[in-house]
């Protein structure tokens, strides 16, 4: 944590770090802080402007926006983490395997990843939504399915680069077994590149989940997912601007901070800026 | 004593970003037709100094000193631009890397004729320009220069490419040629040929040569005088013949003892203890004092400036070693 802080060079980066910390804290403790039940409908209190009782007002069904926002932090962050962890573990495993075996298998796996990347996540999500029913789980599965090749390709590239370095020859000369090469040589040296990508992807995946929810193939109302909240609040923009603004701002600020942090990490950890081409 | 063709006096080079002085108080002069060597280990500042003096280094600048070429003092205002203007005309420059200093998409002949146009400012007729280019290619020892004229750089080996770079520099008939480690990328046999080619040109056309190298033995056998840089300071200007036979500056002596040359046995090799000090190390004393076997406490405090156009041997050693000429 302290190292992260020392990396920050500009006030924007310091702000991003603080914001990211707040979002993470909200994801952990937000549910306890929420003053109301986020799904409690109260038609007598619908579309109330921000007040001392409802700090961020209420939505079209009279639900407290602040409470929804706080619960939503957890949902958004958890689903992002779910996607990321599966994608990183699976993608990195495929990429590393591909780099180690090389030859035709390597070629085949990478072509597969290329073809896979050709499927737009939106179409996949629609497919999953029709199979599993439109839900947050469907959106998560769709993202997992469409995102792993990014990591497979990145990890393969980084691993191939590491395997060509002289210290690997030196390890071979000592007879270091493959599993030890992976744990002691490849993973520690690939870590910097991967952590940068992961940080940048936090915001990308978060946006994707919210986006899918917004168009109706992800989280469904009344679940307080931020994207779904915007979708739900759309129809009230004229007389309830706060309903859209609050989750919109949260999405924007969270995505923005993780993006800034990702760029900062890339600058600090990876001076040569080896990175996957988009 | 002949008038110096090129001289720098009390030149100090600092980084633009933080003003850190990387090379301090260097003064040396090169006579017309002289082969002059500059030796230094990595971090000695030899490349930074040369590149800055000739306006090629964007991140460093001259913060003090005067540079004179062919009787003309380079202006303080717009120094880099004025210096760069000399390059490619009266001063030729051969960089270290023969692979990146040629345009891979342009025929060799075209690159030479272009240099000729630029140098003369006025075209001298396509036929004569081409003839001159082929002549220069022949002079640097390219076999079948007529054929080479129409070929692309990647059709040549490293050594041949370095000759082409050399030919481009020579096409303008420079009075001074600067070569910065021109042979580090080449094998020993090609290295010798390229160096001898440059020296030959020096002798036959009265062109002065500044040869920058980390290889003291190469310089000792090739050039007339050698300037020795260490830690961003100029420590010694010595006749090449004096190295190994007469007292020179302690660093020059120590550096020479490190090199396993033909005449030496294992017992003659003596390593310098410690690590080289980088340029811009930032103390006031002699940069070499920490590794010098003769060093006395005073050496860490003060440094003799080595300056100007004094003839012959010259040493910055405070203890007077190598300064007895």
């Amino acid at each position: 944590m302290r190292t992260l802080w020392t990396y920050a060079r500009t006030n924007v980066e310091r702000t991003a770090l603080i914001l990211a910390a707040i979002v993470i804290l909200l994801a952990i403790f937000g549910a306890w802080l929420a003053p109301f039940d986020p799904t409690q409908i109260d038609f007598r209190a619908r579309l109330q402007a921000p007040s001392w009782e409802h700090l961020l007002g209420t939505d079209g069904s009279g639900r407290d926006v602040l409470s929804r926002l706080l619960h939503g932090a957890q949902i958004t962050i958890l689903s992002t983490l779910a996607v990321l962890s599966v994608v990183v573990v699976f993608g990195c495993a495929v990429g590393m395997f591909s780099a180690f075996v090389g030859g035709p298998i390597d070629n085949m796996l990478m072509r597969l990843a290329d073809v896979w990347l050709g499927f737009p996540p939106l179409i996949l999500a629609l497919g999953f939504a029709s199979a599993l029913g439109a839900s947050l789980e469907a959106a998560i599965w769709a993202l997992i399915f469409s995102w792993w090749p990014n990591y497979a390709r990145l990890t393969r590239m980084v691993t191939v680069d590491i395997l060509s370095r002289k210290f690997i020859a030196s390890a071979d000369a000592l007879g270091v077994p493959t599993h030890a090469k992976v744990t002691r040589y490849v993973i520690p040296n690939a870590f910097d590149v991967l952590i940068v990508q992961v940080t940048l992807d936090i915001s990308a995946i978060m946006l994707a989940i919210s986006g899918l929810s917004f168009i109706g193939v992800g989280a469904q109302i009344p679940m307080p997912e931020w994207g779904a909240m915007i979708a739900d609040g759309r129809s009230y923009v004229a007389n309830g601007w706060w309903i859209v603004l609050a989750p919109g701002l949260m999405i924007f600020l969270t995505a923005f901070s993780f993006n800034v942090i990702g760029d900062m990490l890339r600058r600090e950890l990876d001076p040569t800026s080896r990175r996957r081409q988009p | 004593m002949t008038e110096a063709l090129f001289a720098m006096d009390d030149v100090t080079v600092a980084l633009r970003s933080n003003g850190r002085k990387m090379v301090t108080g260097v003064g040396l002069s090169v006579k017309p037709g002289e082969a002059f060597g500059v030796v230094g280990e990595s971090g000695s500042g030899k490349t930074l100094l040369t590149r800055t003096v000739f306006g090629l280094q964007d991140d460093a600048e001259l913060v003090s000193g005067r540079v004179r070429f062919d009787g003309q003092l380079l202006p303080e205002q717009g120094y880099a631009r004025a210096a760069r203007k000399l390059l490619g005309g009266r001063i030729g420059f051969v960089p270290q890397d023969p692979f990146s200093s040629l345009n891979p998409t342009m025929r060799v002949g075209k690159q030479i004729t272009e240099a000729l146009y630029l140098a003369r400012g006025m075209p001298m007729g396509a036929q004569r320009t081409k003839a001159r280019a082929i002549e220069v290619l022949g002079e640097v020892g390219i076999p079948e220069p007529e054929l080479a004229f129409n070929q692309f750089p990647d059709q040549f080996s490293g050594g041949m490419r370095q000759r082409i770079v050399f030919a481009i520099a020579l096409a303008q008939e420079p009075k001074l040629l600067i070569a910065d480690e021109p042979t580090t990328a080449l094998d020993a046999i090609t290295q010798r040929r390229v160096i001898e080619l440059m020296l030959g040109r020096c002798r036959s056309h009265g062109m002065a040569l500044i040869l920058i190298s980390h290889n003291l033995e190469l310089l000792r056998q090739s050039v007339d005088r050698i300037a020795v840089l260490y830690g961003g300071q100029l420590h010694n200007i010595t006749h090449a013949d004096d190295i190994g036979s007469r007292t020179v500056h302690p660093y020059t002596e120590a550096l020479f003892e490190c090199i396993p040359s033909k005449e030496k046995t294992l017992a003659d090799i003596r390593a310098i203890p410690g690590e080289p000090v980088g340029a811009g190390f930032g103390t006031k004393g002699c940069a070499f004092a920490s590794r010098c076997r003769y060093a006395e406490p005073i050496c860490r405090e003060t440094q003799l400036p080595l300056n100007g156009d004094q003839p012959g041997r010259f040493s910055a050693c405070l203890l007077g070693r190598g300064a007895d000429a």
Partner: protein
Amino acid sequence: MSGHPIVSLKGVAKTFGKRLLVQNRSFALSDIDITVGRGEVVGILGESGSGKSTVANIVTRLTGFDAGTYLFDGADVSAFDKKEGFRFKSRVQIVFQDPYGSLNPRATVAASIMEGLVLHRPEMDKATRRARVAQLLDEVGLPADCGDRYPHEFSGGQRQRIAIARALAVEPELLVLDEPLSSLDVSIQAQVLELFVKLIGERDLTIIFISHDVNVVRLICDRVYVMHQGRIVEEGSAEDVLTHPRNAYTERLLAAVY
């Protein structure tokens, strides 16, 4: 101790496959005969592209070969089973040219040096290993406290010393030095050269010294093989070959050297 030469290459050849329009002819080897006796310091001298580094990789079994035989201490390495192959790695070690690339940047110096001990001397306890590392650091002329630091904190010369300590940790019988001085500063080259001379004097080592530097080879090698375009063009005692060459290429090379 056996009477076999430690390394015996006979008629070894290696070609590199054509890769779509690119033919890597310069590093191909043909008909390499090299014999290295125990305790010898043998130089392999050649320009870049002569194939000398490929020889280093074949001798250390980092790469295979297409034809010929390689007997290590009398045993055919092609017939090695897994166990023998692994044991081979503790009997032969290599130090590479580039000290910046040959150490794992994410491992401490002590971990790098210890790695071979952990693999090949599993019976050794932690304290003994630590003591060995300290002893090796001292032997290569590094302060004992640098074990906990990372390679980037060291200069090129110091890193090369670390790489040498790492190679020596498993007590190899044969040490292959692949251009170990070429990327170092002149004054540091002499320091590392002195270290080699010291190691040759103090340890029971056989050394294959691969270099393009005629003068260094002449100073520290007993015998020398001169390589040119993937072939051995001349061999003999280093002093003899490098003062009175019989081969035209060797002669040209010697004439060119400063």
